[in-house]
């Protein structure tokens, strides 16, 4: 060990294939998730192009269904989740003063099983009978009795990506619990680390449930069982319960790390510590707990007893309380701060406004009797894109702009970044705000054609979606231009309001950091 000490990465392709460095793996996760974001976005463009006008223009209805299914699956499992895992890989060791993740070799595996899995999933498009077309929620019997032969490949890919998520989560928990620098107590951890710790516990608890659901599908399709087939004594509604027992915690798995990101960035550009750190931690934990007891609010119309509807309705409404605490704390952090509006801050403020709108529509959907009207309409589509895109994706974009200068030692083009924000913000709202209206007026989701009265709003929606999609090319260009030829940054802090251990190491971040644990003083707490 002593005579041979690595300071830099290995050379060539094998560096990436065999790397156990948390920064390399984080980078690979981020690039992979961006590639998936482009692929899933491309499918969304096909959907919006078909919906540009009423009638069937471009694609067959079967292919349209494959597009909605793959768009959802790829965005959730291929883009958003891996992007936050990538961020966790880059940042958690740097934020808690650890030299690397606790299980570096497993880290390599949890990344490298992903690309082949998504290749397999995408390859179903070229199979006989096409890709899965039962929607990202793949309700039985659509996904069993009526599924094409590609469903087996789909089941296998869900198994593998679940395995990847579980391995990644175990790694994150093991790192946070065992590798914090001396003096870094739990209540001194940056909020991004806290939200990821809780998210990782959610993942370990519910990814096996998803694996169970697809295993039952596999057995129904190939081994003659009848979990979801009424003819054999099973029940298709059982599928919905199992799926949403996974599916509702899953939406918090997606949004909690986003909360963490916003809780890092807003204080930096408000030049104030985060307001209500302790309450943020408790709110995150409460949301995680509540996420396990609200799943059936996705299934109000399935024929539940009134007592069940009421329980799930009130439990769901309860989530608005800790979420409200969070929004209050972010706004209070900005209150009387010395605000500046660099690109990361713009995306966070965009997040704050639009996520809150998405939260309010969620509250509307939580009301069981109202949901009978909203269920499976475009209102639902508008709601979850406000929380998934303006929530998770906006915060992820903010995170890239915020930490990219630290990672590569070069500053992005600020005016291009701000242009990206405004085009995204306008495009996003143009795409999804009208969907509230068409949904309330009765347009169902997952259809390739619609009634004439929805034509104008759908055309607006499609134009907005094209604008939002195109703005991502600007983002990609800005990131590549920064890495290749951005203005060098050497200031350790990069942003004058940034606080935390990751800003105490040199810029760009060296390949190995914190090989000796840092000393934690009061100044680094709560950042």
């Amino acid at each position, binding site marked *: 060990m002593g005579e041979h000490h690595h300071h830099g990465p290995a050379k060539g392709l094998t560096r990436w294939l065999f790397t156990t460095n948390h920064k390399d793996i984080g980078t690979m996760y981020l690039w992979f998730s961006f590639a998936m974001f482009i692929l899933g976005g491309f499918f969304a463009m096909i959907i919006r192009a078909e919906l540009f006008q009423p009638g069937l223009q471009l694609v067959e209805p079967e292919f349209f269904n494959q597009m909605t299914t793959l768009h959802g699956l790829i965005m959730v499992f291929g883009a958003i989740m891996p992007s936050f895992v990538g961020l966790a890989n880059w940042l958690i060791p740097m934020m808690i003063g650890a030299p690397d993740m606790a*299980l570096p070799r497993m880290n390599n595996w949890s990344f490298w099983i992903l690309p082949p899995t998504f290749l397999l999933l995408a390859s179903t498009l070229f199979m006989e009978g096409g890709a899965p077309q039962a929607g990202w929620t793949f309700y039985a019997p659509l996904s069993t009795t009526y599924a094409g032969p590609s469903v087996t490949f789909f089941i296998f890919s869900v198994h593998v990506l679940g395995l990847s998520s*579980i391995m990644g989560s175990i790694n994150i928990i093991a790192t946070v619990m065992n590798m914090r620098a001396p003096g870094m107590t739990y209540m001194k951890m940056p909020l991004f680390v806290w939200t990821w710790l809780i998210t990782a516990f959610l993942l*370990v*608890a519910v990814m*096996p449930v998803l694996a169970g659901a697809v295993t039952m599908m596999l057995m129904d399709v190939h081994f003659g069982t009848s979990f979801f087939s009424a003819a054999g004594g099973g029940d298709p509604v059982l599928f919905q319960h199992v799926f949403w027992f996974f599916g509702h915690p899953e939406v918090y798995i997606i949004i909690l790390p986003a909360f963490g990101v916003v809780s890092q960035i807003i204080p930096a550009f408000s030049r104030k510590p985060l307001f209500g750190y302790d309450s943020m931690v408790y709110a995150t934990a409460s949301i995680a707990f509540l996420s396990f007891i609200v799943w059936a609010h996705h299934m109000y119309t399935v024929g539940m*007893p009134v007592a069940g509807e009421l329980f799930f309705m009130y439990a769901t409404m309860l989530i608005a309380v800790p979420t409200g605490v969070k929004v209050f704390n972010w706004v209070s952090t900005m209150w009387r701060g010395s605000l500046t509006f660099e690109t990361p801050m713009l995306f966070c403020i965009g997040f704050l406004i639009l996520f809150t709108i998405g939260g309010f529509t969620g509250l509307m959907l939580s009301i069981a009797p109202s949901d009978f009207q909203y269920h499976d309409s475009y209102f639902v589509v508008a709601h979850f894109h406000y929380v998934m895109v303006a929530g998770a994706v906006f915060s992820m974009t903010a995170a890239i702009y915020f930490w990219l200068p630290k990672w590569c030692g070069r500053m992005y083009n600020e005016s291009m970044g701000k242009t990206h924000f405004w085009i995204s913000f306008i495009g996003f709202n143009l795409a999804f705000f009208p969907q509230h209206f068409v949904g309330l007026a009765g347009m169902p989701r997952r259809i390739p054609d619609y009634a004439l009265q929805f034509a104008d709003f759908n055309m607006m929606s499609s134009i907005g979606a094209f604008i939002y999609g195109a703005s991502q090319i600007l983002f990609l260009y800005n990131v590549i231009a920064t890495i290749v030829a951005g203005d060098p940054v050497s200031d350790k802090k990069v942003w004058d309001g940034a606080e935390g251990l990751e800003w105490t190491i040199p810029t760009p971040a060296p390949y190995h950091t914190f090989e000796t644990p840092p000393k934690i003083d009061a100044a680094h707490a709560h950042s």
Partner: protein
Amino acid sequence: MLRLSANPTIDTVIKLVTVAVAMFAFVFVVMVPLYNVLCDALGINGKTAGQAYTAVPAAVDESRTVTIQFLASNNEGMPWQFAPTRTMMKVHPGAVNDTVFFARNPQPNAMVAQAIPSISPSRAVQYFHKTECFCFRQQPLAGESSAELPLQFIVDQDLPRDIGTITLSYTLFDITALAGVPVAAR
């Protein structure tokens, strides 16, 4: 706190893997049986008891009349003719009632069917007792033959007074491919 390894990282990993494996098992050994138990106990989804009800002597409440509606439908691709012989009956709570459904297999080959019941409103499920039902077992029929399928039921005297009509619906499934496999009776 229980320590499973001297190495704290390995200790954490063992515990978390145990949680993950336990959650996978939880789906099969808890969620599925619990769902079926809850549905049976609470009548959720209109599922009726899978076994014959043993009649208890009870007075017939002639002051009250409940309308029972019968529906029969075929699951997709099921070629049989399947219908109730009477679409509606007016019964008194406590009385034993008999009716028959009619089924005919028009295909040249023998087939096996399974009827799956559903009751609406679901609150009525626990008050609708079947002492005999063709849905308790699989129904084989030779090619181009027909059968009368018996149903005997009692409406409980404790049926809430605001329920005046109960709809009993059967869906007939083609289980020829599954026949021979023991199937949970409904």
